[in-house]
């Protein structure tokens, strides 16, 4: 049995979250998303308003916590 949650991170870590791109927004506050590797999954989007296809959202344990806006790129 593979007991690794991901390639190298564990989901439960307080501070592991994955940027994912939104493919489509489904009913019941669910979005279909893909991660950097192209893996698709369903994500709860109850906690972020205005999620739309094409957005990059930060996903932790199946829930979107934020939409990345990129306004603070490093100097």
């Amino acid at each position, binding site marked *: *049995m593979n007991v690794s949650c991901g390639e190298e991170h*564990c*989901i439960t870590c*307080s*501070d*592991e979250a994955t*940027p994912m791109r939104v493919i489509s927004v489904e009913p019941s506050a669910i979005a279909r998303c893909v991660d950097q590797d192209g893996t698709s999954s369903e994500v709860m989007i109850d906690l972020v308003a205005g999620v739309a296809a094409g957005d*990059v959202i930060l996903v932790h344990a199946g829930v979107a916590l934020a939409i990345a806006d*990129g*306004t603070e790129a490093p100097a």
Partner: protein
Amino acid sequence: MKFVDEFRDPELGRVLAGEILATVEPGRHYKIMEVCGGHTHSIYKYGVDDLLPANVELVHGPGCPVCVIPMGRVDDGIALAHEPDVIFTCFGDMLRVPGADGTLLDAKAEGADVRMVYSPLDALRIAKKSPDRQVVFFAIGFETTAPSTALTLKRARAEGITNFSCMCNHVTIVPPLRALLDSPDLRLDGFIGPGHVATVVGGRPFEFIPADYGRPVVISGFEPVDLLQSVQMILRQLADGRCEVENQYARVVPYEGNRAALAVMAEVFELRPHFEWRGLGFISQSALKLSEAYRDFDAEARYTVPGIRVADPKACQCGEVLKGVIKPWECKVFGSACTPEHAIGTCMVSPEGACAAYYNYGRFAREREVV
């Protein structure tokens, strides 16, 4: 992917390393704690510490919830997994965490129905597909993870699913930080703040650190350029004589946090009077349990759990590692009796644990070369 690639730019990293070198006082030794295991992992994966001057030391903090769970709670989970009608669900890294008498994987080998899930919602889906069984989700994590559990419980209630319950081990980040700051054997100059916890709670809960303890905090992202920039921002505060909470990770973290997440947590959870942390002991109001309104989803109310406190193995020094008092390689059993394949301590089990991060990236060196 946008928002990732630009924060792994080696040239930008070299520029920041130069700025750090120009900012430090040569005769001063700096100890900066990265609070969370995700940062520890990134630091060793990308070799961020190799870009720092020798007098800037990174100290690993307690922000890996798997690492801080006491053995007795693991045993309680195993007892639930052995209940005859239960499908026990948890994240993968919990399966290998040893209790006093084995792991959840061992329980599975003995016949318990233990299943790995990627989210609480996956556990709820199993409950919907198995209406004749009871599905227990072993909830663990800081404020980053707690909203996912809370939303899932709200969905379970809204959909009238009664064969789903939760053994709640969620913890909160501020009480252990205060305990660390009150610890007499630890002197720290600043904190790399937990970026994704801050996505939920915002920056305000960390303001007590500069206000009460006079230490700067920089909430940081997780890519190597994020971490270098955060170290530089802490050093800049120290050089300028400033002491405040700054937000390096503003592309994701709003300073006021995620109000919807905080609201759903307030509805579903309430603070436990106290909770045991591995290596740190009992800390008041440092963990969450289900609120009265959600008590019918509480696995510990549905089933009898042993609730026995178990002392850590004597050879294990996870407690000192979690407090940043010793480095992982200074533990007596690091890399010999304790490895990721056969872990004695939790810090070696979770990929985010400081010991596993050192071990997996071959960081056995006792000394760093001066940059």
